[in-house]
């Protein structure tokens, strides 16, 4: 460990050595274990200049670099988690040297041990459900109706101002009415979709050891730009029951018109490494 090196920590696990040989870290460095067989940190030595505070902040602000670093970080965790109970550490957990990591393990040994025991034999699945706005809001029919919506007699003069064309609402009035109809339909549709999302989450939660909801992802991040993400959940499932879980989720959603499902996993237990009670 020279002056120019820092220790990047990926995860905390048990007895990690045999599984680490395949993984390369965020700086391309070999990954190694710090600690003992009972509790060890998976870590790598990175260039302190390239991964120092200022450099890191700059690099993580660059989308290419962020993607590369995030994927490398994730990959190490994934390799370890495939074979051992694993607590993933949040991206960019960097220590000055290995001794600081050992101090961390000593200090939080009991807590980490408990969590690893809890996660042992379990894995995380992600479930995203999208609602199709057109189906939720009643589809094209409603939209067409909105465009030809008539203003109730007597109100057009009040609302439309100088629109004395004698052929129904002025363009502005018609537009506002259409807007209002659309907004109402969207609000109702969203509520309908969100309610189904809640139900699916509750049902899947009963199959899982633990369940969490994440904030919905932005439509343009997911590539599914036309849908409302009504559920972005994470579920901790006993390892042997992953297929069953995914199949159940599929069956649940296929019974609903206008919903689309995406099951991801098995994941390292990212979403359940924040403490089991919260």
């Amino acid at each position: 460990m020279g002056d120019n090196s820092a220790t990047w920590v990926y995860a905390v696990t048990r007895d990690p050595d045999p599984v680490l040989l395949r993984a390369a870290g965020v700086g391309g460095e070999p990954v190694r274990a710090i600690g003992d067989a009972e509790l060890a940190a998976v870590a790598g030595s990175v260039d302190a200049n390239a991964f120092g505070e200022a450099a890191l902040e700059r690099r993580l602000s660059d989308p290419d670099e962020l993607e590369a670093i995030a994927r490398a970080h994730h990959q190490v965790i994934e390799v370890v988690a495939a074979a051992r109970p694993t607590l993933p550490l949040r991206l960019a957990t960097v220590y000055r040297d290995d001794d600081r990591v050992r101090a961390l393990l000593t200090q939080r040994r009991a807590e980490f041990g408990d969590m690893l025991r809890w996660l042992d034999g379990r894995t995380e699945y992600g479930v995203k459900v999208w609602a199709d706005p057109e189906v939720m809001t009643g589809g094209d029919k409603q939209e067409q109706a909105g465009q030809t919506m008539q203003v109730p007699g007597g109100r057009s003069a009040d609302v439309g101002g100088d629109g004395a064309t004698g052929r129904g609402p002025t363009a502005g009035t018609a537009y506002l009415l259409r807007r209002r109809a659309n907004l109402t339909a969207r609000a109702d549709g969203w509520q309908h979709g969100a309610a189904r999302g809640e139900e699916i989450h509750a049902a899947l939660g009963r199959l899982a050891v633990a369940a969490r909801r994440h904030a919905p992802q932005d439509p343009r991040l997911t590539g599914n730009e036309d849908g409302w993400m009504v559920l972005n959940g994470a579920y901790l499932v006993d390892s042997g029951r992953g297929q069953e879980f995914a199949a159940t989720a599929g069956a649940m959603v296929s019974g609903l018109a206008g919903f689309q499902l995406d099951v991801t996993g098995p994941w390292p237990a990212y979403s359940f490494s924040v403490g089991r009670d919260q």
Partner: protein
Amino acid sequence: MPQNSGGTRREKGQNGHVREADLADDGPGTAEGGARGRSYSTRSGRERDAGTRDAGTRDSGTRDARAREARAGGYGARDPRAADSGGAHDAASRERARRWPLAARQAAQRAARQVLELTGRQPENVISIAKDEEGWQVGVEVVEMHRIPDSADILAVITLVSMRAANSSPASASGAITAAAPRGAEMTQPWSSAPRAPGRPEPANLADILERVLDKGIVVAGDIRVNLLDIELLTIRLRLLIASVDRAREMGIDWWEHDPTLSSGKGGLADENRRLRERIGELETVADGGGDTRARATPANREVADPAGRQIRTRRSRPGQDNDG
């Protein structure tokens, strides 16, 4: 010009402009036309950019449009490092500014303040923030015109462009555009109620990974600290710009309307927006306290006086819906 109205901002106590409640007001239409023209030229530039996959030949139309916005906006004329005139930055953010030219949150705050100075209108929301090789682009929403009912308020989105290249090389930024472009197309599937076969999942997509590595996992206090909150905000926005700028533009500019994170009042981005709004409020208080002689511009003369990249926000439910209006 129905495209022009249609904000849904609720502005309690500020909706007294009865005389302006003419529903057929075409005033903002000209601004809309101008904004659209630029918007389209920018998009076509981007499309060609992505199409040729050539990092070296950025479309000149794009550059022109950007340059125009930047010049007009005046935002880029400021040195982001300079101790700002508002003087309301705390020591921490000043420290950050010194170390790293402009972080996402600061860019947003500055942009909001600039909007206030330029237009005399209070910024409602910072609705987008993105960085490319030429610097930051920050979209700030203002109420262009209060109406009764207030759901008919006209909102404008002012895009401020910082010309300062914020430590990112053109090559890497353009590379990101080409690398990321196909992702959206690949993943878009036709609607169906049939689930995808579960089975062994494909390689995790970046959104899922970032969601987890940036926001989940054990948090321990490392020796080197990076504010991931900034990064998260920034990442989302960057990805949005890079991954699907073409498709987004085709959609219209109203994606945030059906972004539950933004519209539901809970969730990280909504919180971020709230914090930014509060911050802007503080900044404005400071500015107003300092003997403000700024005239409150009328809409008419601001069309001339405020040449910042401006798009009238239409908040359409669906693209193309209003085209017959």
